[in-house]
């Protein structure tokens, strides 16, 4: 490389770095756009040099209008065209790549792509994210190839039938999400599936209403993440999360999207975010600012819904109530508890900025049952555990770190959390576990019963209501596992930052002065506790919650309720606010209003 070229390259990199790291509040709209483009370019840069960049290499080249014959070759020879498989995970990259390059690709490539939609029959799947991908992709494909008879489509339906069905479902999904909430909500691992589907819809739908719907849903889900994340980590609980991301939060798919759109976390390369990064969709700056402003602690409350209950229940979609408290150093969040999703739900966690990759503390009752699975899946309940463990291998492990329990409930007020258990004898399992990473700076076992943890500027107190032991299991080499075998059980969690507590020593002193009192007998499990903020919490399992003597009525919780977002149950609307700005999404009228 010539010296002048080297100098130019370094200068460009420094410029990009400065744009990427300019504080959010200081950015003008122009700087915001440039910084976004810089992140997008960095995310995709590997596609220029990768030996076999595959289908995304083709999409990138088409979108950039460069190396078009190379793009054709990559597309024509990629696995998705040569050997279609993967159902809806096949559909979105194929239609996304096609739409990025349809006016640039050769007739051969076009014909090959079209043929796959005739000969390969993707399965629709059985989860909300499957359907979002399936129908968004099918909608776009049906629009692209209109007026074809059923014999030209994998499912025997005509172009019109496919387009109409897909449109109806996507409208239905939008309505459900904006009236009673998502079922697969706040999922660090499944966020990308929704983001990509809506991104493709927003970019490529010919129907302006559907394009608008895609844009508005992108605003909706990114806002949902913006008020509930810390430095690129979704703050728990979650509807679905894979075990690695539970204790290594930055491993989740959400992290890449948070970096691309929020500019948080470490720089990210490639992955599924590629297709989104090629889209002209721009995150409204108001959402970006909310995602980046952690100058003041705030409480975020949300209402979501349980995945469709098909048996062993009285209601199809009972509500899920979530509360988070987020500061610049940590976030603590919880769902109200119970069986709200099968397999991968995670009821509560503390996330903090210190100590990657294990920047979290949480607890759970590792429960599993065929009946739980049968609530949500149609196969036979007695064989379903064997079915599920074929792919979700930890589901029936007594040591697992994900999963909900019918014997677990929570009560959170700001940064104080009570978790209670009243576990039926003989159930799987008869213990509860707490996760403490080994990279904590301090983990003190105080004679008062408080476990006092220091993680950088975040301090976590854990008061176990029953005795337990510290496990030395082989698989726990990176963490301490606090296990208690008492069936009537629970703990109180307090989290404070250095800014809030003054120092770790002061935090510990405060904890020593705040000892919960509990009743722990079968059918009668309760805790009375005065928080470090001097609020009086009373929690009786499963659902008696009082704060300073007043009943906490979760049935009145809104879809969004925070300083940044407001949405009523049933409203089909969302109001986003930040420092005097307002953005209102109205899904009934399909309008966005900025003030």
């Amino acid at each position, binding site marked *: 490389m010539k010296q002048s070229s080297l100098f130019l390259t370094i200068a460009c990199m420094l410029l990009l770095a400065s744009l990427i790291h300019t504080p959010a509040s200081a950015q003008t709209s122009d700087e915001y756009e440039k910084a976004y483009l810089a992140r997008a370019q960095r995310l995709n840069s590997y596609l220029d040099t990768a030996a076999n960049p595959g289908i995304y290499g083709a999409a990138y080249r088409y979108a950039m209008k460069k190396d078009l014959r190379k793009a054709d070759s990559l597309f024509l020879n990629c696995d998705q065209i040569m050997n279609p498989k993967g159902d809806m995970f096949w559909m979105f990259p194929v239609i996304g790549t096609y739409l990025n390059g349809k006016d640039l690709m050769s007739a051969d490539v076009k014909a090959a792509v079209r043929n796959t939609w005739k000969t390969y029959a993707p399965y629709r799947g059985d989860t909300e994210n499957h359907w979002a991908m399936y*129908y968004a992709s099918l909608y776009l494909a049906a629009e692209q190839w209109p007026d074809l008879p059923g014999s030209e489509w994998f499912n*025997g339906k005509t172009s019109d039938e496919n387009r109409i069905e897909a449109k109806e479902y996507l409208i239905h999904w939008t309505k459900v999400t904006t009236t009673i909430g998502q079922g697969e909500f706040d999922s660090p691992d499944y966020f990308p599936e929704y983001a990509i589907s809506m991104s493709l819809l927003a970019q490529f739908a010919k129907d302006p209403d559907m394009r608008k719907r895609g844009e508005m849903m992108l605003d909706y889900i990114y806002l949902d993440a913006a008020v509930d994340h810390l430095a690129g980590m979704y703050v728990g609980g979650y509807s679905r999360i894979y075990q690695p991301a539970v204790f290594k939060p930055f491993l989740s798919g959400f992290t890449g999207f948070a970096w691309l759109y929020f500019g948080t976390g470490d720089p990210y390369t490639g992955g599924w975010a590629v297709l989104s990064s090629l889209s002209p969709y721009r995150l409204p700056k108001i959402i970006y600012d909310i995602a980046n402003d952690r100058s003041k602690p705030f409480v975020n409350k949300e209402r979501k819904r349980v995945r469709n209950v098909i*048996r062993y229940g009285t209601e199809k979609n009972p509500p899920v109530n979530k509360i988070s408290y987020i500061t610049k150093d940590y976030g603590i969040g919880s769902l109200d508890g119970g069986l709200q999703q099968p397999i991968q739900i995670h009821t509560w966690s503390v996330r903090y900025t210190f100590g990657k990759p294990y920047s979290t503390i949480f607890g759970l009752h590792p429960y599993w049952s065929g009946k739980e699975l049968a609530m949500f899946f149609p196969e*036979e309940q*007695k*064989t379903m555990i064997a079915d599920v463990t074929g792919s979700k291998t930890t589901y029936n492990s007594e040591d697992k770190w994900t999963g909900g329990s019918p014997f677990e409930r929570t009560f959170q007020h700001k940064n104080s959390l009570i978790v209670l258990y009243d576990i039926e004898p003989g159930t799987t399992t008869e213990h509860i576990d707490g996760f403490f990473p080994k990279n904590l700076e301090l983990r003190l076992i105080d004679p008062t019963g408080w476990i006092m943890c220091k993680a950088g500027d975040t301090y976590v107190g854990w008061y176990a209501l029953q005795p337990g032991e510290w496990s030395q299991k082989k698989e726990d080499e990176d963490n301490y596992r606090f296990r208690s075998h008492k069936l009537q059980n629970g703990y109180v969690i307090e989290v404070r930052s250095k800014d809030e507590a003054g120092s770790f020593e002061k935090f510990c002193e405060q904890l020593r002065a705040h000892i919960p009192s509990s009743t722990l007998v079968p059918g009668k499990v309760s805790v009375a506790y005065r928080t470090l903020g001097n609020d009086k919490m009373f929690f009786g399992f499963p659902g008696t919650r009082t704060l300073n003597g007043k009943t906490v009525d979760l049935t009145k919780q809104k879809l969004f309720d925070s300083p940044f977002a407001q949405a009523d149950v049933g409203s089909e609307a969302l109001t986003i606010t930040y420092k005097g700005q307002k953005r209102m999404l109205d899904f009934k009228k399909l309008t966005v209003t900025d003030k």
Partner: protein
Amino acid sequence: MNRQFRTLAALAAALLVSVTGTVAQESTVYATTIKSGLFIVGSQTPKAGVFFQHPSADTVWQHTGPTHTRGFSVDVNRATNGKIKYLAAGNGVHRIDETAGTWRTVTDWRITEVLDVTSAPSDANTVYLACAYGVWRSKDGGTTWAESGKPGMTPGYTSKIIIDNANENRLYCASHEGAYRSDDGAATWKKIDGLTMHGILTITQHPKDPKILAVGTEDNGIYLSNDAGATWKKLESGVDHSTFYAIAFDPQQPETMYASGYVTGVYKSVNGGGSWRRMNDGLTDLTIHAIAVDPRVSDRVYAGTFSAGVYRSDDGGSHWRYAGLPGAQVWDVKIVK
């Protein structure tokens, strides 16, 4: 050598089927799989859905309809001599037209997790389906569907729906809430009061006496009614298990019944359910979701297993041998004369 000969004969039979379309004097066996192993004639692609064979084909099966779906059950329409079939699957109902060599998904996003489907013996366009959310019916071959169940039924998880042998307007269904009967072509339903437990998994009718019904349940064993569901008797003699997914009558000798379920192996009764005996010799997987008797050959019985494909007995259940679809999770087996 014997095995090689059997395989050669089976391949020859399969070839004959593909050339002539039929094999004289043989029934057709249909197996519906949720997922399959790697084996299928002419392909290394793991297919699922509907497979079929004639018994002389031994372990060789052919596939029809959607290649890649979680198939729960298949209806082989009698009015069209099986040329029209309906596949109940996780992603809806698929209508297979063997004459045209095509198939088409006939449900939309509103209908999902379809566990059973049946069409009227006299009219391929009258179709009923049972799914995780209740019962639906179509009068036009699946072009349009109307939700059934109300009044009279609590919509919900419904795993089996059958049409009365003697009256096409009478239907029965098995659901998580109980068993139901309709006397007006699924326009309205009435709960069968004699069965008070939840978790009715399957319901079967005697091939010659329509008043005799049998149900298999989750955790509550097998029940039999001799009066079209007015009263029920639990069949307990010799039964050591509680969860039953399938019950089959021998069409030629209906006093002979078979039942199977969760780790049950195969139970057989030769006295109309009065007493039962387990007959598992040769079975490698005792969880059996489907069982069917060949209407042409009384002692030929097929069992669909949870994880080991199809097994077959040619001596009324005394001995079983592997009959193909390795590793498949079989939900339904039907044998059509």
